[in-house]
């Protein structure tokens, strides 16, 4: 939109990856004079807000400088040799697919840092908290910005350790077990993924994603592609998570602190689906086409399974935990994303990318809200919250209740809000899948997926009824604080973007579509 010179763009992108790392180191050092703040805790938390804020500013500048007329071209690219012995290069760049994800990641991290500034989760020193948060940010941003398979793996792994500690040190009940489960699942998945990446790299003689993508799998034999898709797919599917590899997610979400849940759902899960789109679709199209029907099947099972699990948790007397419920709803939503990818059509993949962003915004908001609810009531147990008639948030904390209802209806895919377009496009894509995919199977998936949206609507409405409605005078609970100012500050951007993306989807689709078209066509377009 505005003309920024290429070298500045290059710097901006590299800065976005390096700044959080430097900030993490700085967070561990004592504050310099003049920046001491009221107390060491306050100083370091403010440091976190500053660094994530600067990164967000860089991301916005990058978006403004991005040539929106050529979103399929990689921009702000850096390409320098790192390890010549293995032909690993530091190759960075953004296109229409990664730009929205980068922006959303930077935004969510900033909001999380802002939220923690006022509401630090209980646990050990905030120094380590801020440092881990910043390392996590660097890792997630790097995942979306690197264009080398081994660097992608490094970035993918980089988030594990900070997330482990965020859950294990600042989490709630059962946090050790949940953190251990999280790291074991994702590690096993990523080791398998590394094997697949090495297989591609060694046989094609390059780890460069751009070269591999424009080659479109012509250098790779069918067997290689099948093995690679299987290995990489398992690694990514664990992260996404795809049913039946999802079982680490509900535990991790339930135990994680609010900020951890928001980032886990909003950013970390996207790394899995991004890998599918960035690596598997263009590099191994034949292998992907073979496995697409199975991927689609697992995706719709995930949709229905997630929704049924949520329905069960939402029922009265089941002692359902709200955080766990939102976690299961993530399994369902990510099912739509996977279904869109499995269709291998521009429509479906665009839908998947849209749903990715929408899920990040909406579920991020939901986790913020549920976390705040848990802070107010001391529990996220739905039965305890609702009591006999319902928690009556409309009556007790009207703004809070309205926000929760808004997030819930956005999540169920109300037209006009962000949640709608992605899932609809994904279903459209599955209705008319790419050539060579079994149409009948995908028609079934479309039907089952559509039924899944109904189930989603059902459990979210049940949640809204039990949490927001009810008799305000019936419960014994003390008065509930309405939305605080800092909570408004952290949540409003998410609400605004949800509405914006819902009313003006072309904003996002205009970016992703050309890039997706080129991705699916390889070097042919």
């Amino acid at each position, binding site marked *: 939109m505005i003309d920024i010179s290429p070298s500045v763009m290059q710097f901006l992108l590299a800065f976005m990856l390096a700044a959080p790392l430097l900030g993490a180191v700085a967070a561990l050092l004592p504050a310099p004079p003049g920046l001491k703040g009221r107390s060491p805790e306050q100083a370091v938390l403010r440091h976190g807000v500053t660094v994530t804020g600067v990164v967000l500013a860089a991301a916005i500048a990058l978006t403004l400088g991005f040539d929106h007329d050529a979103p399929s071209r990689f921009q702000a690219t850096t390409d320098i040799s790192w390890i010549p*012995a*293995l032909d690993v290069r530091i190759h960075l760049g953004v296109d229409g697919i990664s730009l929205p994800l980068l922006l959303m990641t930077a935004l969510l991290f900033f909001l999380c840092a802002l939220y923690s500034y006022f509401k630090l989760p209980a646990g050990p020193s905030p120094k380590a908290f801020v440092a881990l948060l910043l390392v996590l940010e660097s890792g997630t941003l790097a995942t979306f910005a690197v264009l080398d398979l081994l660097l992608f793996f490094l970035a993918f792994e980089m988030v594990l350790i900070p997330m482990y500690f965020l859950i294990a040190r600042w989490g709630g009940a059962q946090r050790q077990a949940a953190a*251990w489960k999280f790291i074991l699942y994702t590690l096993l998945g990523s080791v398998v993924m590394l094997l697949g990446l090495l297989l591609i790299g060694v046989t094609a003689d390059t780890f460069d994603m751009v070269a591999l993508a424009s080659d479109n799998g012509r250098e790779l034999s069918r067997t290689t592609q099948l093995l690679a898709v299987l290995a990489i797919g398992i690694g990514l599917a664990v992260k996404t998570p795809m049913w039946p590899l999802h079982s680490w997610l509900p535990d991790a979400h339930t135990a994680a602190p609010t900020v951890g849940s928001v980032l886990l759902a909003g950013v970390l899960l996207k790394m899995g689906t991004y890998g599918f789109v960035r690596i598997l679709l263009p590099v191994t199209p034949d292998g992907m086409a073979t496995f697409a029907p199975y991927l689609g099947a697992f995706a719709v099972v995930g949709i229905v399974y997630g929704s049924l699990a949520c329905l069960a948790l939402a029922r009265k007397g089941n002692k359902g935990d709200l955080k766990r419920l939102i976690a299961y709803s993530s399994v369902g939503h990510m099912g739509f994303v996977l279904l869109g990818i499995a269709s291998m059509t521009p429509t479906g993949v665009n839908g998947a990318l849209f749903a990715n962003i929408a899920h990040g915004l909406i579920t991020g908001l939901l986790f913020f809200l549920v976390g705040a609810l848990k802070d107010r009531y001391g529990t996220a147990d739905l039965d305890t919250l609702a009591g006999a008639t319902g928690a009556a948030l409309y009556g007790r904390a009207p703004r809070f209740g309205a926000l929760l209802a808004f997030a819930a209806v956005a999540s169920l895919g109300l037209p006009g809000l962000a949640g709608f377009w992605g899932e609809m496009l994904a279903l459209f894509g599955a209705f008319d899948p790419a050539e060579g995919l079994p149409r009948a199977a995908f028609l079934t998936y479309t039907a089952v997926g559509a039924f899944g949206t109904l189930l989603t609507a059902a459990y979210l409405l049940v949640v809204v009824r039990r949490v927001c409605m009810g008799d305000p005078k019936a419960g014994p609970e003390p008065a509930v604080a309405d939305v605080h100012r800092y909570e408004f500050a952290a949540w409003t951007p998410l609400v605004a973007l949800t509405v914006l993306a819902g009313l003006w989807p072309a904003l996002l689709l205009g970016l992703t579509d050309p890039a997706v078209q080129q991705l699916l066509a390889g070097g042919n377009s």
Partner: protein
Amino acid sequence: MTALTVLAAETPSLVQSVDWLAIAPVVITAVVGLAVLVADLFVAERHKPVLGWISVAGLAAATATLIPLRAGDRSTFCLTADPEACSYTVDHFTVVVQFLVLAGALLTALLSVTAVRDTRMPAGEYWFLLLSSAAGAALLPASRDLATLIVALEVASLPAFALVGMRRGDRLSSEAALKFFLSSVTATAVSLMGVSFVYAVTGSLHLTQVADRLEDVPGQFDTLAMAGVALTLVGFAFKTAAVPFHFWVPDTYVGAPLPIAGYLSVIGKAVGFTGLILVTVIAFPAYSQIWGPAIAVLAALTMTLGNAAAVRQSADRPNSAVRLLAWSSVGQAGYLLVPIAAAAYSERDQIGSTLAYALMYAAVNLGAFAVAALVARTKPLHRISDYRGLYAERPLAALSLAFFLLCLAGLPPGIIGLFAKVTVFQSAVDAGLGWLAVLMAVNVVIALYYYLRWTALLFRAPEGAEAVEGAPARTKAPWPVAAAIVATAITAVVLSGAPQLVLRVASGSLFTQ
């Protein structure tokens, strides 16, 4: 008189020329060792620590002499009749391994300074034995004939037996030394037998000549030559602690003083590997169809058994930390063997991956032993559970150990560990050893379990409140140990940022001949 001059002109002189700079790293180490032994007689008891510092300085000087040798183009002790056949060659392979050995010995010496003082080991003997062993280990990569090779191997090993038994009055220590000695001597005897067979077939001890003459062995000697090749390998496989020659490792490590255990796990292994590489790749390429599969199988068994045993170590048993490191070093030896096996199937430059991996492993494993030495000062039981909450007590030591363990596991942020594994993996794939590559991947996953469990333990909250209350005042880390930890940690971090420093060894040719 004239007749004699004429005779001398006609028959080439038997006196070989000596390139003193080329052999300086070995000679300096050996001479300093002898000097320390003699000085021990004249130095008063309270001045004994001086001996340690002389040794450290000697090792540092020996390491420094590698700088002018880095071009890697010298040979000495060549046959006057055949200047191509030399007994001592300084090529890139030699320089890299000598650097590994001498720098490793230097770190061991740093760790030993406090250990010798605290446990009241006889200083003169200790330093003499350590330097002699290091001199042998430094001689080994340069030797290019079978006799020098065996002599170097023994010079490196014999002092090590004594070092293992150095803890006076400790039954475990003497038992470990005896076990180590008996099994090692048997292996050497077998090796010598193999060498004699090879000599019988080829009539030469020089590796290059052996290689040439093994190309066309007369039919009736073929079996003898094969037996010779196989038996020679056994001795070196023993030193690398490859399964099934590994059983001495855990007991020896536990019985030995901690710095010596670290020394054995790194330099002891390097000795075995360089010997194995020299005999297989330089001397016996003609019989690669024999040793190739054999080493591949050894590699598979070694990594699998080592990792399986390491997983089974329970955290509360005494010495479990040292045992875990011992078994994990057996597992790591398996990875080190993979490129040697791969060299049998493709070209010999594959072994560069072994060297790259060994360099990474040396820095990281010595670092882990250094932290273990630090922890053992307050908690002498060497239990893994002693490491619980180390982060709260000694944050830098805990972070370093975590980094070392992650490098050993091959997990980011231990990037150098990951990429070293990738080069090894790549060499297996290039050589068409797909099954070995898959097995290695499985082993890496198994190893993740025990490395991560230990890493996670470092950051747990310390046990109970009583630990906080009755905690003894934190003892200050002795600075030589701290220096060793810092040096290895910086090496590991720098290598993770610029893996090319080590990995370039893996690409390109190492041998001049």
